[in-house]
């Protein structure tokens, strides 16, 4: 809880500087100046001044969510559900009651990507509690900060995704450091420094409108044809069990069967998503998890898993969005106020480590490429759940992405000891072997994984992960063996296994 080191988090902010100076990999189209002018017609002129009165902001339990998703995201969530406009946001509406109005942006006909301005306004209610209010408006404003009257009021305006990540992180901090006003003043100062630096350094790169990576949500879920378990009774439970045993291919088929029998079963969708991720099939994972969230928008495991999967795909905005939703739906963190009373429970919970929160932090730090801090987060989570092989894999992936490949190998090995059928971890292990120049070991790992996927159901190539094949091709090509390259291109697993067994690799 408040005993954690605020220093740590301040330093985190500073370390984000290089990240913030990069443009995000998917720069967003700003609305044209005309749109901006029409949006703010009712408002004060362009310097988005919306002074907050301190001590009046409260949080509702049903937080309106910042929809950071791109309008083209066809997850089924209607973009209209989360629209924000500056015009409704006026201080007079803050009556201190149980109401957080985020307002709506009249984004008009903007069907393509927008540049989101996210404002996180953090106001102390009194010396002990902090509430957080967020608002989002689509404008073309540059970064600004405003210091409002009263100590400890922190206003952060984030123009772009990178800043959203920081802002999101600060919300998490707010939750953890509610009573530390010194901390908040420091944060404000750090933020302003960052903005100043960024302002000086920022120059508009050639911001081309970006083509989204093929959003997996554009296609529906592709069920396996000829599913032998289609009519299996208790398919969900059976699928769950097989997953535990490490037979991921069978688990996937059983869960698909369960969904086929009851398409509204959101838990089955979520478990299918998580299992597909473990099986190194990210796109299927994302589609499944999004389907779960259509049915049950506040399902926390799905939100956290979606954040992870989106991070893996480089869908930074979607990942942020999922994390944000996870926090705001999480009863431990979306503090609620009823008049003068506060929820005592949330204060208490802050004293023990929440491995899920740590996972969220770890994902966030991965998004911002702050790998060392992500490692700390996952390590902390593991201290509470040392048998969690998913966490071991996450730790390993973070280490590897942060160029600590030897340590990554140790983490993956641990994960695989706990769950030998964990395809994703074996894939990651292979990647780290490539990084370390151990090409033969890499190939061996990939072949093992592919074999495990194929063996379970004796089914077609479809069950094997294309990612693993792609990585296998890379590993083989680095060995300068054109004969194996050919076999890899052709998908000839048997030949490759033969060559490996013979020791010819």
């Amino acid at each position, binding site marked *: 809880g408040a005993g954690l080191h605020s220093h740590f988090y301040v330093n985190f902010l500073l370390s984000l500087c290089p990240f913030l100076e990069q443009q995000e*990999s*998917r720069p967003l189209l700003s609305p044209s100046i005309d749109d901006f002018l029409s949006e703010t017609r009712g408002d004060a002129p362009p310097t988005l001044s919306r002074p907050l009165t301190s001590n009046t902001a409260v949080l509702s339990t049903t937080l309106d969510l910042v929809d950071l998703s791109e309008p083209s995201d066809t997850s089924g969530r209607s973009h209209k559900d989360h629209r924000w406009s500056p015009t409704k946001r006026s201080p007079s509406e803050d009556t201190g009651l149980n109401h957080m109005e985020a307002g709506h942006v009249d984004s008009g006909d903007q069907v393509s990507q927008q540049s989101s301005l996210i404002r996180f306004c953090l106001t102390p209610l009194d010396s002990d509690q902090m509430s957080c209010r967020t608002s989002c408006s689509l404008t073309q404003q540059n970064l600004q900060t405003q210091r409002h009257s009263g100590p400890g009021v922190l206003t952060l305006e984030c123009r772009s995704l990178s800043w959203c990540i920081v802002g999101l992180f600060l919300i998490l901090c707010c939750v953890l450091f509610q009573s530390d006003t010194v901390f908040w003043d420091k944060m404000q100062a750090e933020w302003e420094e960052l903005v100043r630096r960024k302002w000086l350094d920022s120059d508009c790169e050639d911001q*081309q*409108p*970006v*083509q*989204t*990576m093929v959003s997996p949500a554009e296609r529906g879920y592709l069920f396996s044809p000829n599913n032998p378990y289609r009519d299996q009774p208790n398919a969900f439970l059976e699928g769950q069990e097989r997953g535990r045993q490490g037979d991921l291919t069978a688990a996937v088929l059983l869960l698909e069967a369960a969904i086929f029998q009851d398409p509204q079963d959101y838990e089955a969708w979520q478990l299918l998503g998580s299992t597909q*991720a473990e099986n*190194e099939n*990210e796109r299927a994972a994302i589609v499944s998890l999004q389907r779960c969230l259509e049915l049950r928008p506040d399902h926390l495991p799905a939100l956290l898993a979606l954040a*992870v999967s989106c*991070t*893996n795909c*480089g869908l930074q905005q979607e990942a942020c969005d999922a994390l944000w939703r996870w926090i705001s739906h999480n009863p431990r963190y979306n503090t609620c106020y009823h008049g003068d009373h506060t929820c005592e429970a949330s204060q208490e919970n802050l004293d023990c480590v929440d491995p899920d929160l740590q996972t969220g932090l*770890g*994902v966030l730090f*991965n998004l911002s490429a702050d790998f060392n801090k992500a490692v700390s987060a996952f390590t902390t989570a593991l201290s509470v759940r040392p048998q969690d092989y998913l966490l071991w*894999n*996450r730790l*390993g*992936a*973070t280490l*590897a*992405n942060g160029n600590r490949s030897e340590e*990554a190998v140790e983490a993956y090995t641990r994960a695989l000891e706990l769950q030998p059928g964990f395809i*994703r971890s074996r*894939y*990651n292990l292979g*990647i*780290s072997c*490539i*990084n370390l*120049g151990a090409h033969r070991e890499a190939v061996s790992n990939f072949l093992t994984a592919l074999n495990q996927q194929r063996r379970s159901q004796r089914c077609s190539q479809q069950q094997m992960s*294309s*990612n693993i094949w*792609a*990585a296998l*091709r*890379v590993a*083989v*090509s*680095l060995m300068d063996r*054109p004969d194996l*390259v050919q076999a*890899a*291109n052709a998908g000839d697993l048997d030949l490759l296994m033969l060559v490996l067994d013979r020791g010819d690799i």
Partner: protein
Amino acid sequence: MASLAVLPPERLKKPLAVPSRLLFGPGPSNCPPRILEAGAKPVIGHMHPEIFEIMDDIKSGIQYMFQTNNAVTLAVSGTGHTAMECAIFNSVEPGDSVVTAVNGIWGERAADMAERIGAKVNTIVAAPGRFLSNAEIEQVLAKHRPALFFLAHGESSTGVLHPLDGIGQLCHKYDCLFLVDSVASIGGAPLFMDQQEIDILYTGSQKVLNAPPGTAPISFSERACKKIFDRKTKPVSFFLDLKWLANYWGCDDKPSRVYHHTGPVTAFYSLRESLAVLAEEGLEKSWERHQDVAEYFHAGLENMGLKLFVKEKKARLPTVTTVVAPQGYDWKEITSFIMKTHNIEISGGLGPSVGLVLRVGLMGCNSSKSKVDMVLAALKDALRNCHENKL
């Protein structure tokens, strides 16, 4: 007397620092010493007789490079975009119908420019990596009866080399001018302006020519000149007004050249030398070399398990290769890694190809097998080091 409100910048007190790096992106390319040194020669007046000599050298060099006898041949002061605007602003009047072929970013830009000066613009679109058939082009010409048809020969954003044969003839059948952008292709792939009935052709100095960016060769056929000099309205740009430019470059039959604008004299020197280098090697040799090197490069890529974005071999632009961004990697990490570790620039996608491809340019002096080996080694290193692990 009031004191200065703005002080001498501290930044300018630092010495000028320019790193050396290998430019294997889509442009600009590296400049060989001979061309760089030419640009460092003393500045003379932009209307001095010696400069006119150099400009005449340039004209004849461009005529050779373009394979044309057009009198109105010159180099616009500016880069490829300047030439694009020069072509469009002169040949198009408000209300004219214009069609641009869009198979990448350049058609989009041409359409934008034509719109700005009040043309009625229609586009015909091919998917990234593809090109249009003559039948499709004829269809759109018949439908819209444009005064001008734009096509990018070297579509560098997608790596496509667009076939040209027969299109000029089609345009003329429909009484339309044929405008071709060869910024990324001239010198690297065959092109015959007169033979292929191209009315307006332009390129940039900073690609195969290996000169610094700053001048843009352009040429206008008689047919184009007729329309341009018969305009009812003045071109919207004084700077790019062809009547003035043609006079400055001595392409008209006026007795003397009149001051229009100050030509970028040292850029003329480097352009002149780059054309001399091209003439020395010979066009056909240069085309062949670029083709051979590109094929060598493509084979090397495929051996690494990488895939080429343009499926059809004959449609692959030899000067800019587009590689499908490999699975499991963030393309930005690959390009950053290669820049940091190997001091080599390669690029990601542009316009419709953003996020989909890596782009490697092998142009002029950078088009050689040894350079290809360098790039392949760098890519291999990146593949080894940049693969993303999955949380």
